């Protein structure tokens, strides 16, 4: 009952301080969005920032389903992709017909396409919850991907469909050619979408969705049809996914079938989980992390997806609350400062040893496998390593096994009686 006593704080106090903190966080977030391109000026940084902004909208939209309503969807990229494709066609139409619609409103069109397709497919998908829902969304994702080659005019086949964002009427003298302008367009829509999603979390729907996540059966006995709750969540999530898709269309000026496929759907599940689905900032952290890994780490190593997968598995096993959970949880013992207590900090050394050994082994295996045409020598941290000789493999094995043994001993000392 210690946790109960811990959390019994008068509501009024929580309300006031939480309100202030929330306001400050939004101000800081907006400031950060404005300032980031001034801190990271290179073209590649700007590209990462733009992709991250889009990924944040996409992950936040996904968390309306997963974190808020407890609906695990494996087909969320469908609405992201359809929003993107729809936006490209709308942009081309506007450019051809010389309609007076400027680029900055296009994400709204993408959102509406997402909403429309979400309502259509959601009518079917939201009929059931739980595993059935997960499987239906998985099937819908496969279905739409399979339909893409048939609907060649809309999806553009292998090479996808393209557009020219500068062909749209200019607004306030902005041509939206330079990446910096596109970044600020994405940042604005990111802030707007995040604000809207946060607002919705505080409405009656948000409250009922969270209750439905906790106990879908009881919801029915307080006057809410679960199907309607699921459908509403599905439509909202699809709307914001459509906005993210439109931003992608604007950013890259191309959409391909891969954008609505299973891999894109999986990526958003991973990002949301790694970031932490119980907190509003969780998907934001996850989306940024995965985007940065996707762009930067893929330059360094071709095995970046392997690391992402490892991060996901370890996260789910040892930090189910995700990164946000580690940083923000109020559960004693779960908090980062409890986890980082000096006696536990000792564990950091063997953990780092295991990580180093693991990375070494993965990179060497990668060199011998997929990159074998480049020879057997791989430079890691500036050190040339011959992957064909047994010595570096021995080092890797020693690091992993030794680190594991020390960790085991240290852990059993920290929790006497427990074998974990």
């Amino acid at each position: 009952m210690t946790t109960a006593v811990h959390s019994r704080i008068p509501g009024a106090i929580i309300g006031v301080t939480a309100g202030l903190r929330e306001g400050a966080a939004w101000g800081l977030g907006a400031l950060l969005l404005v300032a980031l391109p001034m801190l990271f000026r290179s073209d590649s940084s700007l590209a990462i920032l733009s992709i991250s902004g889009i990924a944040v909208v996409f992950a936040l939209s996904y968390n309306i389903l997963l974190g808020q309503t407890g609906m695990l969807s494996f087909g969320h990229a469908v609405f992201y992709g359809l929003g993107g494709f729809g936006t490209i066609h709308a942009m081309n139409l506007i450019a051809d017909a010389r309609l007076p619609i400027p680029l900055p409103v296009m994400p709204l069109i993408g959102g509406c396409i997402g909403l429309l397709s979400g309502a259509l497919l959601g009518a079917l998908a939201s009929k059931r919850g739980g595993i059935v829902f997960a499987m239906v969304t998985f099937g819908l994702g496969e279905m739409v991907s399979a339909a893409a080659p048939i609907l060649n005019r809309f999806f553009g086949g292998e090479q996808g469909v393209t557009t020219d964002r500068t062909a749209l009427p200019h607004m306030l003298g902005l041509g939206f050619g330079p990446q910096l302008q596109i970044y600020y367009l994405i940042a604005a829509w990111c802030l707007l979408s995040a604000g809207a999603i946060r607002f919705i979390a505080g409405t009656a729907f948000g409250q009922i969705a969270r209750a439905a996540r906790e106990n879908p059966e009881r919801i029915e006995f307080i006057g809410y049809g679960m199907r309607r709750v699921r459908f509403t969540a599905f439509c909202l999530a699809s709307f914001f996914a459509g906005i993210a898709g439109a931003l992608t269309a604007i950013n890259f000026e191309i959409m391909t079938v891969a954008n609505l496929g299973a891999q894109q759907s999986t990526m958003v599940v991973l990002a949301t989980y790694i970031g932490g689905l119980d907190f509003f900032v969780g998907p934001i952290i996850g989306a940024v992390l995965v985007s940065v890994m996707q762009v930067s780490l893929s330059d360094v190593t071709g095995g970046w997806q392997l690391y992402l997968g490892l991060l996901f598995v370890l996260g789910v096993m040892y930090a189910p609350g995700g990164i946000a959970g580690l940083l923000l949880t109020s559960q004693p013992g779960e908090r980062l400062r409890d986890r980082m207590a000096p006696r536990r900090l000792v564990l950091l050394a063997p953990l780092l040893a295991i990580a180093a050994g693991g990375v070494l082994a993965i990179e060497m295996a990668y060199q011998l496998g997929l990159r074998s045409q480049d020879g057997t020598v791989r430079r890691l941290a500036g050190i040339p390593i011959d992957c064909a000789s047994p010595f570096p493999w021995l080092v890797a094995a020693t690091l992993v096994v030794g680190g594991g043994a020390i960790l085991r001993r240290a852990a059993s000392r920290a929790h006497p009686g427990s074998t974990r």
Partner: protein
Amino acid sequence: MSEMSQTALLLEDLRKSFGVIDIIRGVTLRISTGERHAIIGPNGAGKSTLFNLISGRLAPTGGRISLDGQRIDGLPPYQVSRRGLSRSFQITNVFPRLTVFENIRCAVLRELGYGLSIWRRIAGRADVVARCSALLDEIGLSSVAQAPADTLSYAELRALELGITIAGGARVILLDEPTAGMSRPETSRTLELIRGVSAGRTLVIVEHDMAVVFGLADRISVLVYGRIIATGTPAEIRANAEVQAAYLGATPDAGALPA
């Protein structure tokens, strides 16, 4: 109860079978508006099934259920709830990771007209806060309002269960063994609570504790193997020979029946 009083809940020849097994075998029961009606019977008599039929959790195989003269049999639970009938559960059925306040708030939103609105923030709304505070006072959980429901004690959880059930302003409430697993003092406190919250409503209660049943109910029905074998005032039920034989006789401890 006079025949002139209005009927809140009417069951007519209600039947439910699971495969070839008949659980409810033709139950007819009229419960008047404002009445506190207890349903008793041995384990396996079909009491829980009866509640599941009335509240829409199960669809009946045959017969009719009417709430204030309107048919509700076969409707899904949320439709039954919207028509003014609410139930509690024997095994506590709350929203574990939400706070006590949020648990109650979920149950008042529809009644206050917020539905599933995505346009209005509900935090700090005067009508919501006032209704929730009143309910929390009524069920005695104001001091733990901000605690997550999964940190409550058993008795507190049962009180919360009751609070969620009455929060939506239902005219008819069904309570499924509200004092199950409680100590004597907890039971008598819960009994007072039920007396309070059922004032001005129609109450149907399934309960094993005979002290609660005979202390609370205006009328009692005895359900045995899917049939009601007797309905009457506590005095009539206590005097009924058939009931004595079929049900009360099974408890040799006569002291379980308060005079």
